[in-house]
């Protein structure tokens, strides 16, 4: 049976796994894009995901949990042959991040016994979001911890949704948004 804190740790690991994929993906995306503005944006996003990844690793280390490592490589769903493929991969990476953050919104709720179905598992480039050997299962998160995690998850979900909208605007200008980011 999963201990209460394990659900939170698993959710954090899942977010970290999507950040690893984004840190790997954006440099590839950046060299494939043609527009200087989009290349600059890809670099900014890579830096942002790198920063988030480092913060998440520190957050997991503070919980005495081994952060899930990056995979050797990540592949896009389709071969990257031009700017449109690169934009599509960037969109996939951001949607995976949104899915992971949406799960992080639910995990603390489930840890304290909230009911109802959690979100469906998103397809991430790396699905190895396993709990490390020094997992700190046991007690449910405190109210302050829950509030902090929920704020972190909502901020991450909103940021990923906004970035996904940027890429979707290039791919399908008439439908740049999705009703339920992260689902």
């Amino acid at each position, binding site marked *: 049976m999963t201990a209460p804190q394990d659900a939170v740790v698993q959710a954090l690991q899942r977010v970290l796994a999507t950040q690893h994929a984004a840190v790997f993906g954006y440099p590839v995306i950046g060299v494939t894009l043609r527009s200087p503005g989009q290349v600059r944006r890809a670099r900014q996003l890579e830096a942002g995901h790198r920063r988030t990844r480092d913060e998440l690793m520190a957050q997991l280390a503070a919980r005495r949990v081994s952060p899930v490592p990056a995979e050797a490589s990540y592949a896009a769903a389709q071969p990257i042959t031009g700017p449109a493929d690169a934009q599509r991969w960037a969109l996939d990476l951001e949607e995976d991040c949104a899915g992971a953050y949406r799960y992080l919104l639910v995990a603390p709720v489930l840890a304290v016994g909230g009911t109802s179905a*959690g979100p469906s598992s998103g397809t991430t480039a790396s699905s190895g979001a396993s709990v490390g050997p020094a997992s700190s299962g046991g007690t449910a998160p405190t109210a302050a911890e829950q509030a902090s995690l929920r704020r972190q998850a909502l901020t991450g979900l909103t940021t990923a949704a*906004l970035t996904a909208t940027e890429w979707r605007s290039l791919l399908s200008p008439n439908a740049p948004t999705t009703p*339920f980011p992260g689902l």
Partner: protein
Amino acid sequence: MADISRRTLLSRALLGSALAGGALLGLTRPIKHKVAVPPPPPPVALTAALARQRHLLDGYDLVLANQPAHPGLAGLRADVAAHGNALRAVLQHYPGWRLSTSSTVSGSRTPGSSVPPGSRTPGSSLPPGTTAAGTGSPVTTLPALAAASRSAAAATSQACLDWPATEAHAGEVVPLLGSIAACLTSHSRVLG
């Protein structure tokens, strides 16, 4: 003077004492009426979110009436309509909501209006200036639609953050409100 038999006298005396005893008992014992208690109203945070959604949807309809060829506006409207469907589906978990909607079918009440002003139920905290009605001035222009989306996103984010983790449907409501808030933030960005 009519003669009264001993049996009649006895039965009348018995009836009289029974009536007097009953009246005495009725005066001393409290009367318990069985009254059907209505279920608690649905959480204000959800009905307020639905009211905001309706306000936005009306805004989209007004703006689309003026600019039917606007690219992308129909897609954004479809997102908002989907939010309404999802919120109504979650509200079905609450008997108070079901009662109010069934009353509406019979024409006596409006859904969501069953919430007494100021009533606080789990997850009912509303940001300052947000009412359960959730409607301000009608939205007729794109900048107003952007502003309304921004305001709705902020209110929905707050509702998501404030929803109690121990509430029965928190596992469903929290991610739903989070996704709606993220979507509306994207809308406000797209609308400029």
